[in-house]
Every structure is written in structure tokens, then in C-alpha cells.
């Protein structure tokens, strides 16, 4: 048996995940074919049930804010964007992703439970906007 026959293949590489939201206009994730748990973070084995039978899926692009914080002290990649909100977004199909809201400059601009929509952007990371 050669290496390539036995090697584990992830559903997507981290590069492909990033390419999908940066270039292809979609958020991709995996769904466990046994327990249907959905996750965007690249994994090889389901964290819920231990199954390695995962399928690559396209995730929803709208959801609600599970929690958030407002960054006044950014890292170098966000130096020109602070303050902004970092949020954990529960997408409407169940997966949770990290994203940021350039428009949310203080806690008055965002609340847990707010409806948000992903927006393709040339900037770093996944940007969300509040749905009015």
C-alpha cells in the first residue's frame, strides 16, 4: 500500500476554507454524517460523536450573535479597524463561526441575539453586518 492510499484526507484544507469566503462567496464547513453536528473549524473526527465520516457542506451566511466583545486594542492585522466587534455567530443551520463587525464600534451597536449577515470583503477575516 502506498502512502497516498492510506493517508487521511480532510474535507477541505484551511487554505480552501479561506479561499471559499475570500474568493468564492461562500462559507464552507463539515457535517458529521452520523450525528449531523456542523462545524467550520477544520477537523478530521467529529468532536461530538467521534465519527470520522464527515461531509463538506456549504454553511448558511446569516445567523445570530451568540456573544461578542468590542476591541479597542487590536492586533496588527486590525490596526486600522479598531474599535470593532468580534462576535461568535450562530449560523441559521447550526454551525458557529467567528467574525467581526467593523460597524459595531461600541456595546451600544450590538447585542446578543442580534440578526447578522455575512458580507464578502477584501479585508481580512469574515465580516458580518447587522440585519436592520
Amino acid at each position, binding site marked *: 500500500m502506498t502512502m497516498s492510499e492510506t493517508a487521511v484526507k480532510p474535507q477541505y484544507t484551511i487554505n480552501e476554507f479561506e479561499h471559499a469566503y475570500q474568493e468564492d462567496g461562500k462559507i464552507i464547513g463539515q457535517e458529521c454524517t452520523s450525528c449531523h453536528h456542523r*462545524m467550520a*473549524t477544520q477537523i478530521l473526527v467529529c468532536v461530538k460523536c467521534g465519527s470520522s465520516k464527515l461531509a463538506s457542506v456549504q454553511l448558511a451566511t446569516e445567523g445570530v450573535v*451568540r456573544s*461578542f466583545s*468590542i*476591541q479597542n486594542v487590536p492586533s496588527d492585522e486590525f490596526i486600522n479597524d479598531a474599535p470593532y466587534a468580534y462576535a461568535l455567530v450562530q449560523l441559521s443551520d447550526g454551525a*458557529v463561526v*467567528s467574525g467581526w463587525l467593523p460597524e459595531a464600534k461600541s456595546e451600544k451597536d450590538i447585542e446578543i441575539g442580534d440578526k447578522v449577515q455575512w458580507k464578502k470583503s477584501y479585508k481580512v477575516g469574515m465580516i458580518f453586518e447587522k440585519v436592520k
Partner: protein
Amino acid sequence: MEEVWVAGAAMNRFGKVPGMGREMAANVSLEAIEKSGISPKDIGYTFISNAFGISERQAHLGPLINTSLGIPEVPSATIESACSSSSAALHEAFVHIAGGFIDAALVVGVEKLSHLETLAATSYFAMGADYAFESKNGATFPGLYATLATAHMKKYGTKHEELGAIAVKNHVNASSNPHAHFQKPISMETYLNSPMVSFPLKLYDCCPFSDGAAAVVVVNPAKFKKDLKEVPAAIRASARAGSIAALQDRTDLTAIPASRLAADKALHQAKVEHKDIDFMEVHDCFTIAEVLAMEDMGFFAKGTAGKAAAEGQTRVDGKLPVNPSGGLKAKGHPVSATGAAQIVEVMEQFNGRAGKREVKGAEYALAHNVGATGGSCSVHILQRV
């Protein structure tokens, strides 16, 4: 399994420390060995922690320290587990001695950060998170704990004033700790008026960027009991656990699963109950982290630890003193030195050198050290011998 005792521990004053990390590490190592009563030649293994050594263009610190201590032939390894690095190193030392492989070990953690600007340091610290999925999407380190704080405040009604009580307490405790980064008490007003770093966390909710080093000497008493100069601390439990790495993949945003798992294991190992613990050093990189630690380890019901702190239950003279050293918040947090520094406080307490922050008659102490947002966690339980 062999018994494992802490025989000596030392740290420098945390804060802005001149010189290089390797120098600090060597200095506190020799001090800890001298305090213990054994000699450098007795060390069977050196476990080093220096998560951000790369900021000084330095890796492979072990041989440098061992050479400096005159024991170049002794094996060494670097143990990295983000902010819980040196408690992970202590766990390795424990396992080696308990398993009978060696009779004595040196554990040393060190970090040099003050040569970095706020921006560079914040960028380094973000490395402890999941870069591709969290940091690249806007998470900073304070931001991730702030996200936990937002969820905790929403679910349990935890108040700024409760987090503030923790900051005020830890600054009071640090004011009688000559090794602490900050040695001035602060008022609730100062806390409430401090600038927002990452809503809902203010400047005084955060631990500072600190330089510092701490070292711990652990021995098998069957071999070294007669040589010891300090009141030793027997390690009754050395437990570690993990949680899902990224916050986005966790079901509960108001708890750190690894804290509960490690504490459960530790209490079981030590055959003690919550009520037996006389004081704890917990991982308060942010005030909310102290709330989570107290709740997740089962010392307070979920949603009640903030109130308990506000009532004074965790002050040095309270029912369960938490962070008599001043904690990461006020003693300072040189990432990889923190786990070992918690053990230094235990030894100061057991040897009657804690002065105004002494927890009278303490027999059992618990040390809780979290890596990043809880991807890793160590809990040690120590008993005064």
C-alpha cells in the same frame, strides 16, 4: 507511585525586568535550588517553559540554563502549554519522580515581554488562540475572555462591580507581595473609571504584560528528606485536562470545561473535598477568569462567584481566600512563569513568609492554571508537610 514534594521555589519581582529571559531563568533556578537544600548536581531533569521565547530569538533554553547551573549533562526539555506552560512542566516533573525515573527535577518558567510594544505583544498573545479560525476573524486574547464575560453577564446578571471586587481584592493582596508587578491598592472608583480594553473588560480587569521568572524544585522525599531546608509542600494531586480549542465550537460560553475536568481529577487523586482546600491560586488573567475558575471547579454554584467575591468571601480573611499573591491580575502574568509562580506563593504561605496576606493555619492549597481560553488546564493540590 513515589511521593513528590516541592522542596524549594523562587521568583523575581514581576514587571519590567532588565536583561534577557535566560538570565532571569538561571537566577531564580539557582535561588530555588539553594533554598531547597539539594545541590544542582542532584537535578535529574530540567523542564523549562518559555512560550514566547521567539520574541527574543531564543529557543532551546534548557541547555543554556543547565550550563549556567554547572550541570550541562542533565537532560532538559521545553514544555509549552500557553499560559499554563510551567504548571504543565511541573506535571511532567511530577510524573517523572512519581514514576521513579528521577529523584529531583527543576521546573522553571520565564517570559520577557517588555521589549515589545502593546501592538506587538497583543499580536503575540493572539497566537495562543486558533489563528485561522479565531484571531484572523478579529479575536484578540482579551477579546476572547471578554466574549466569555459578555455571555456570563447576560446569562447570570454578573455585574461590573462584582468583577471590580475581584480586581480590588487582588490589588490589595499584591500590595503586600514584594514580588508583585503592581503593589498599590486600587479603589472601586479607579476600577470603574479605567478605560475599556475589550468591552466588557476594562484595563483593571486585565492582567498586565509582565516580564518574570519562577522556579520550583521537586524531589522524592525518600531520597532527599534529610537535606531539605524549607517546610515542604507535598504534591497530593497533579492533574491536567483539555477543552475544545476554539470558543466558537463550545456549547457553553459561560464555563471552561477543562477547569472542571482537571479539578475533579485532582480532588479525586488527592482524596480531599472542596471544603478541605484552605486557599487557592487561580488563573485570573482577566477578572472574569477568576469567576469562571471558582465556579467551574465547583467551589461556587454557576453564576454566584462574582457575588461571593463582592461579599468578601474570597479575601485573605474570607471563607475561601483566592489569589492571596495578588493573582495574575496584580502580581503580573509573565505567561510561562505563572504556573511556577503560583507554587512560589504556596511555599511562601507554608513557610510563614506571606506577611499581611498570610492565610492562617493553611494546610491544603490548590493551584489552577489555564492555557489560553482553556484548551489546556492544570490543577495541583499541595499539602503542608
